[in-house]
């Protein structure tokens, strides 16, 4: 149970967070994302064991690692879908782990999330999927929303599929629509969970190019979780390799290649 003074401080902090983030277009002081000493376990299984990472505005960090090393969990912690056992998560200088739901939602609106399977709402059309955040969080008129949806879908090459249902789309097309939806509110931070998983090499390449183009247009901080070393090399400024709940190495692709860490060597060798 919190002390009354703690409650007051937290309320002031939340209010300040909501106001600051709302008035700054999603960007405020400090790096876009700062993770410090992040721990997360499920039962006896330790998934994240003290993660420290920093992502600056406009920078793209690729998080690599074997299956089940907690890469997707890391993204869900950053957007507040799961709570860490301990550690801190700073979003543009704002600690989010103690925030109440309303303040957390104010921060979530400034982040875009592309899920591994795109997670499009299957009862809504492509157009309605992309319009969903606009309807919820903006005061745009119907025609302004329509224009914005067309613009977003055009930017991902899906302008001709407005009325299609998600079940009528291929995996790559669903990812494109998911990207358009993630970008709807012009976020300052983009979180991408396996953007090329399950796609053929040509479609993967197209998605990589699309991400690069969108990053150049929107100048967002991005965190990309992937198994795909080639994709990571193409779209990321920096890479972090997770193993046994810790960041084994962090740096440019060249630095990873030059590392004499046995796991890093094994990982790069396997993937090449």
């Amino acid at each position, binding site marked *: 149970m919190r002390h009354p003074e703690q409650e007051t401080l937290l309320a002031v902090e939340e209010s300040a967070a909501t106001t600051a983030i709302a008035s700054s277009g999603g960007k405020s002081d400090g790096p876009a994302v700062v993770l410090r000493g992040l721990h997360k376990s499920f039962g006896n299984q330790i998934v994240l064991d003290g993660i420290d990472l920093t992502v600056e505005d406009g920078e793209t960090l690729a998080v690599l690692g074997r299956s089940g090393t907690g890469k997707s969990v890391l993204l*869900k912690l950053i*957007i507040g*879908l799961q709570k860490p056992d301990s550690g801190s998560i700073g979003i543009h200088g704002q600690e989010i782990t103690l925030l109440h*739901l*309303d303040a957390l*939602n*104010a921060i*979530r*609106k400034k*982040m875009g*999330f592309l*899920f*591994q*399977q795109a*997670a*499009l*709402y*299957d*009862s809504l059309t492509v157009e309605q999927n992309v319009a*969903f*955040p606009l309807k*919820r*969080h903006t005061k745009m008129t119907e025609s302004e929303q329509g224009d914005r949806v067309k613009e977003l879908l055009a930017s991902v090459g899906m302008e001709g599929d407005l009325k299609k249902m998600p079940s009528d789309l291929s995996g790559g097309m669903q990812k494109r629509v998911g990207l358009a*939806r993630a970008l709807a509110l012009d976020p300052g931070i983009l979180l991408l969970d396996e953007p090329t998983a399950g796609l053929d090499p040509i479609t993967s390449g197209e998605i990589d190019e699309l991400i690069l183009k969108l990053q150049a247009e929107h100048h967002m901080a991005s965190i990309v979780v992937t198994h795909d070393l080639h994709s990571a090399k193409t779209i990321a400024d920096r890479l972090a390799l997770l193993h046994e709940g810790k960041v084994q190495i962090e740096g440019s692709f060249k630095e990873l290649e030059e590392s004499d860490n046995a796991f890093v060597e094994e990982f790069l060798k396997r993937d090449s």
Partner: protein
Amino acid sequence: MMSPNARIPRRWTNLDAGQAALPLPSALVSVWSPINHFLEWFGDLGLFAWEVARSAVRRPFEGRELIRQLDEIGSRSFPLVALAGAAIGAVLSLESRYSLVRFGAKSMLPAALVYSIIRETGPIVTGLVVSGRVGAGIGAELGSMKVTEQIDAIEASGVNPFKFLAFTRIVACILMLPLLTLVADFCGVLFGWIAETLVEPVSFLSFLNKGFVGANFSDLLAPTFRTAVFGLIIGMIGCFQGMRAKGGTAGVGFSATSSVVLSSLFVILADVILVKFILVFFP
């Protein structure tokens, strides 16, 4: 000389006493485990209800989604509820006629039919039909959304899923159940009259006059409004089971089935309790 242990059956030797004690903890576990699961389930349901109640007082109020759910739950259950009410009315009329004729109380048929339909049969049939159609629908829809991360996507976009998905469905169930009950009541009485008039022609007005003789407003109002509680149960359990679905298609199937089974069970239990409650407050 006979050893003291010789008369003791083999299974009761000292050597076995220690071994016999071993299965005891597992026996306790097998009894305790389902109780523990049940208590855990109730605790989780309580927390879920609390989250939904908390979300209800926060803006925005999701009017558009509520209207969509009213249509989905109300209008689309209309044909099934009307059919069930009609069938029950016709069957009750035919069966009651046979019994009442035997006891020389044929003239009581309209009153017996109307009372049984508006006080009990209409509400419980509506509750069970809606728990089957809507409970399964909500459980499957939300279960599918849960396992495909659509609920996470809603939450990640800064929308409260407890309000957007659960609160709207629960309120729609609460509002639509009494209206659907009136539909079932009307169809039951109408088809009861049709079944009766096929055997012995009687005007609908005369049938109604005889049926509602001595009836007062609370005879209709209290049983009809108790179905709002059925709506709360169906909506709450459907959403709860759907939003805690795990795994793939098996998880969705389980959430749909368990929504129907649990909501039907709790509707029947609530019916028993509420009938007693209504008899006390509206004798």
